[in-house]
């Protein structure tokens, strides 16, 4: 593995590879190794030696860091100023059985977002500017360090979530937010998947700023908070903000939610732990190779999708993002075709195979196949950033 220490060295490595027609896999801490289609590359380049916070002025709430900076280092610096990454990036090591140190560049390259995503945006929404090296070895700067910026094409969004197939990120500039003064979670017990979808939609229609909405069915409930959630399925709703504001909103939310089922409350500490466990997909961090899907559909379609699949396959699942994000563990076969057919029938979305055995991974496309016109367009875009096709060919389709 090559670990260039400067951006110029990285550009040289990539330029040379492009000239030689040598393929490269790009990574940060490689904690998401195995994500995407199986690819063979001649060499791997890691950003881990491009490390360190370049600029952080807490009053501006903007950070610039080299891409290989450990996420833990960023989060510690933010925590010291009572700030945070609003999009709550998940840690994939548990479910993927990997080691290593997640980097901030890896977080953005994979557009990794957690429970707050449906209100605060994805990682890509916090990313303001980047420096990256394209497939010709040229250093490119895109975006900037201000929140409102419509100057030119938004290559920042394009690179976010491109999983190292369009360019090698060397530096990222992103927006951060203050840590909410407090948090509280309301638990509604005993709802089935469909009832939970109704309850969560009702909660999100209220002016109380719910910042987390998940449903934890009976099969996974005991895996959260060391089994201390109340009996029955748990539908959980998070409120965050100033203490005075949270208590007012909590009363309002509870008043409406008690029509759906018995209510319990979790305090700030329990909330923090619970949402971290939801974020990191705690129930399926199980050292297994059972196929694990991450599915994104319209919130009201989530439970219908799972119900339809259950008639034909062994499925265990729980829901985040008001029901629109489904973490789904298959008992045996990944059932990719069935799953993707149901997604299309329910209005569209996408399924990503996050984990599976080596054999399954070689047979099953990890990302949702795209319609021809979109696939061709994506291929042309890739060609414009990586004309020689040296960055992980085939990883994203």
């Amino acid at each position, binding site marked *: 593995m090559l670990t260039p220490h400067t951006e110029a060295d990285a550009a040289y490595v990539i330029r040379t590879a492009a000239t030689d027609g040598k393929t490269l896999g790009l990574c940060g801490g490689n904690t998401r190794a195995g994500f995407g289609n199986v690819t063979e590359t001649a060499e791997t380049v890691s950003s881990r030696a491009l490390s360190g916070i370049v600029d952080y002025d807490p*009053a*501006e*709430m903007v950070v610039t860091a080299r891409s290989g900076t450990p996420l833990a280092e960023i989060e510690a610096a933010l925590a010291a100023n*009572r700030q945070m990454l609003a999009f709550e990036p998940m840690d994939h090591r548990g479910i993927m059985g990997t080691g290593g140190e997640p980097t901030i560049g890896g977080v953005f390259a994979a557009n990794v*977002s957690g429970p707050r*995503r449906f209100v605060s*945006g*994805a990682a*890509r929404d916090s990313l303001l500017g980047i420096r990256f090296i*394209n497939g010709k070895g*040229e*250093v*490119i*700067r*895109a975006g*900037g*360090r*201000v929140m*409102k*910026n*419509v*100057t*030119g*094409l*938004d*290559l*920042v*969004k*394009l690179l*976010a*979530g*491109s999983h190292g197939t*369009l360019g090698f990120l060397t530096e990222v500039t992103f927006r951060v937010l203050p840590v909410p003064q407090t948090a509280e979670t309301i638990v509604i017990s005993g709802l089935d998947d469909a009832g939970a979808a109704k309850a969560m*939609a009702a909660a*999100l*229609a209220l*002016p*109380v700023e719910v910042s987390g909405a998940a449903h934890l069915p009976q099969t996974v409930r005991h895996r959260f908070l060391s089994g201390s959630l109340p009996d029955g399925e748990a539908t959980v709703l998070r409120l965050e903000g*100033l203490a*005075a*504001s949270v208590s*007012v*909103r909590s009363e309002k939310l509870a008043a409406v939610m008690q029509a759906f089922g018995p209510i319990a409350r979790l305090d700030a500490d329990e909330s923090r732990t619970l949402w971290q466990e939801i974020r990191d997909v705690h129930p399926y961090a199980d050292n297994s190779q059972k196929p694990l899907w991450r599915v*994104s*559909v*319209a919130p009201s379609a989530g439970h219908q999708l799972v119900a339809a699949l259950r008639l034909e396959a062994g499925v265990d699942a729980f829901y985040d993002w008001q029901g*629109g*994000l489904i973490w789904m563990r298959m008992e045996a076969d990944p059932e990719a075709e069935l799953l993707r057919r149901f997604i299309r029938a329910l209005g*569209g*979305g*996408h399924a990503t195979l996050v984990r599976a055995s080596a054999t399954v991974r070689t047979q099953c496309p990890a990302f*949702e196949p*795209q319609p021809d*016109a*979109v*696939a061709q*367009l994506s291929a042309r875009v890739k060609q*414009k*950033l990586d004309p020689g096709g040296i960055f992980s060919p085939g990883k994203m*389709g």
Partner: protein
Amino acid sequence: MSEAIQFLPPRDSVMSRRAAIVTDLAELLPPECLVHEARELVPFETDAFVSYRRLPLAVALPKTTAQVAAVLKYCHRYGVPVVPRGAGTSLSGGAIPQEDAVVLCLSKMARILELDYANRTATVQAGVTNLSISEAVGTDGFFYAPDPSSQLACTIGGNIGMNSGGAHCLKYGVTTNNLLGVKMVLVDGAVIELGGKHLDASGYDLLGLICGSEGQLGIVTEATVRLIAKPEGARPVLFGFEASEAAGACVADIIASGIIPVAIEFMDKPAIEICEAFAHAGYPLDVAALLIVEVEGSEAEMDAMLQSIVEIARRHQVKTVRECQSATEAALIWKGRKSAFGATGRIADYICMDGTVPLSKLSYVLNKTAEIVESFGLRVANVFHAGDGNMHPLILFNANDPADAAKAEAAGNEILKLCVDAGGCLTGEHGVGIEKRDLMRHQYSEVDLHQQMAVRAAFDEGWIMNPSKVFPLDGRA
């Protein structure tokens, strides 16, 4: 009419076939959807960047995605430039046509297709106005967050083209953060869908790339946007400061405190005087800077937030604090701010700049802006969204005096360079258009620009989509 900004020369291959092109387009569109008589083309010759105008070859006003596709396919085949247009409210000349172009105006595609409250989405045609979405869902307790000041007229298609912002984006983000999906027509007439009611892209984030691409990558015909539950109430507080530095520092402290107001508006002394003379809002005239900070929520929440905000302002030697007890008082506080552009227009012509700067540079850039404008012998008033650093200096001049107009343009260019040099950017929400096109090299290197143009070419190899915009005309691949 100004002449400093060049357009691409008309293509001979198009100009020589004008009549044939109009005849061909008439085959593709119903009669009421095609405009080609010179007199009828006049309303389309410019947008809100009125100092430049060009009469287009024809204007297509399609009613369906299929008609958009037919026109694009034809124009692509014959190399006819296409200039997309919503309501024509662009402040950067994004919708100004050129003599060899067909304007594709989406104003007849103005239906709301679906409101889905369970998923909090609205699916609309691209010609729907921004405000009409919030109006359609308001009684059911929802709203659409991005609110550019032209929201009464501007269309969602145009908002996507320019990635529009507004006063509320401090809390809710800009268009790209609220856009879930589009149906769009590519330059060859292919119709694709990106995104939908679900979150995030399955492959490359083409939706993120389309948003803010200024009509250069294709034509969006339908959009699915995120709806948000409407807050119970909103209440402003007004602060007057003796120095703009104190106001700037106060903004930074409010943001850093963890409170996210829905708006923080800044006015400098010239702006205060202009607005007060017009609106009689009772603004203090003995201060150098004024902030209007608005919070949302229930009465109890707003009380708590405003109390904290007032405490912060007091730490910054605030001279005037005006809290409001009633809706009438709140309306009065906003009345002056909302009439700023109209009030300025009554005393002089003006051009409105749109650079964004880091919050810590607000005071520095304000002072420098005043120096620059003074050096050209002109006046400037500043009214802008302070919470996100998006400045809107209004440079006052006399449009009937060409020398004055040239000075205003030159001063504007200097101010935008200042914004970039301070770590910001040329445009926060109005777009590059033609206005800032020739300043792009101040923000980007040649290799940066070439990478953007290469990605553009993945969508439109032949440069027919809005070709005179965004990228400097010289040095194109």
